[in-house]
Structures are given as C-alpha cells and as structure tokens.
C-alpha cells in the first residue's frame, strides 16, 4: 500500500475516494474540517489548511502511525491543533485543492517543519506553476497546423 492517499476527482475533501472509510471527525464548522480516514489498511489524517469558510480550499492528507492515531484521538482544542501540525511535518503528504466541496487537483508534497501556512503557500506555488505549464502545452497543441487548417 502506498504511503500516500490516492484521491479521486470530484470526491468530497473529507471522504476523498470511493474506497475511503470515515473513522473520526476531529473538527467541523458547517463542513468537516479535519478527521481520520482509512484507505486500505492505512489511516490518514485529513485537514483543511486554507479556505475553511470559502468555496475554494486547500486540504492535506497525511499517513499516520499508530501512536499518532492514538494521540489525535485523545487530545482536545489547542493540544489537538498542535498535534495536527506535528502530523503534517517531516513526511510526504498529498495536498489538494477543492472547489465547491469537490477535489479538483492534488500533488505530493515533501513537508518539512515549515508549518501548515507555509505548506499551503508552497503547494499553491507548485500548483500554479503546473497549471501554467499545462496551459502552455495546450496552447502549443492548439497551434498545430492540423488544427489550424480545419
């Protein structure tokens, strides 16, 4: 099993694939904002990094050890927020952008100890660069003589 969550296009950010089971909600405000989910044998943390009230938001998915699962299941409020930050550090994550509560695109991100804000910023930078590259590729294809002649 991969260390990384395998999301599906259009899935809810808090239930990011059809083979994911919801285990625990850790926080919710109008929509689920963080919690534990399982894909195969692996337990992941999901958490909204940015855009909690907005229609567009950034989400992170982190594989958890058994000890981390136990820790996250036993803490409250500020202590839980601190443990959640720790669970996003020093590992490969999947970070995703969602629009209207549906996953749109995602990237693997090698997280250091930069914290969730810097992580979201770095992800958005990577995603913007990738989209620019895709746009250039599409424009190149659109200018192919085969299309111009029709």
């Amino acid at each position, binding site marked *: 099993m991969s260390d990384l969550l395998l999301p599906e296009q259009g899935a809810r950010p808090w239930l990011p694939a059809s083979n994911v089971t919801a285990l625990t909600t850790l926080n919710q405000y109008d*929509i689920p904002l963080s919690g534990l989910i399982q894909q195969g044998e692996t337990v992941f943390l999901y958490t909204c990094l940015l855009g909690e009230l907005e229609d567009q938001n950034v989400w992170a998915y982190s594989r958890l050890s058994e000890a981390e699962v136990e820790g996250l299941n036993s803490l*409250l409020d500020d202590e839980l927020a601190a443990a959640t930050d720790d669970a996003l550090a020093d590992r490969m994550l999947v970070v995703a952008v969602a629009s209207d509560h549906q996953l749109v695109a995602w990237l693997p991100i090698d997280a250091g100890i930069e914290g969730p804000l810097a992580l979201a910023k770095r992800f958005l930078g990577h995603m913007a660069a990738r989209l620019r590259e895709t746009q250039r590729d599409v424009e190149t294809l659109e200018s192919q003589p085969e299309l111009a002649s029709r």
Partner: protein
Amino acid sequence: MEIRPREIADDEYVSQYGSQQRGFQDRPRIQDTDGLSGILGELTPAEARRRVRRVGAPTGDDGVRYARVGDLRAAYFEVRHTPWPGNTLHVSIRYPSEWDDAVAGTFNRCFSDPVWHQRTGGRA
C-alpha cells in the same frame, strides 16, 4: 475522544464566525450537510477564528455575530451542543424542514450586527 454534550439554556448565546469578504452563512453550504455551525458563548472574532481556521492571524476580515438561543428556538431552529475534539464549544443549528430563502431571512434576523476584529482597542 468522546466529549459529553450538555444542555444549552434559552438565555445562552451562540457566536457565528464569518468574514467581511464572505459574509455570514445563512443556510447549509451543501446538500449533504444538514445544518449550520455555531460556537457556544459570546466569543471575540479572534477566539472564534481560532476554532475554525487552522492558519494565519486574525485580521479585520474576521467577524462574529451573536444570537440568543431562545430566539433561535422560538423561530423553530434546533440548537444543540455537538462538541468536536477540535472545538468543544461547537453547536449545531438545524431547521426541521426545508431551509429556503424565508428560513435564511429568519435565521439572519435572530443575530446581532457583526463585530469585526480590531487590531488595537475594542473587542479583539
């Protein structure tokens, strides 16, 4: 961790967190959620923000508005303490039938004018 919900009295207040840019939610955000969230008590914008947003410091964009629980219940909204580990003061506000434009208007009328975060002085 299971947290025991408690009864909420009619004379208690709930805070709703919102933003200048986005305003305040007055109906469920998506079809597969059945209500709105609030926070038990009269919190400042900064206190409310900390229970909702993971990153960043409070700014003038952060706001709260307050409703007396008895006023919400008199308008047929169900108000229950539904604590989450990340927000033990979480409150669920539901409506027993369709949450349409008229219900959204009634919901808005239950709340005070918004209070916005101020960097210095006033409610922070």
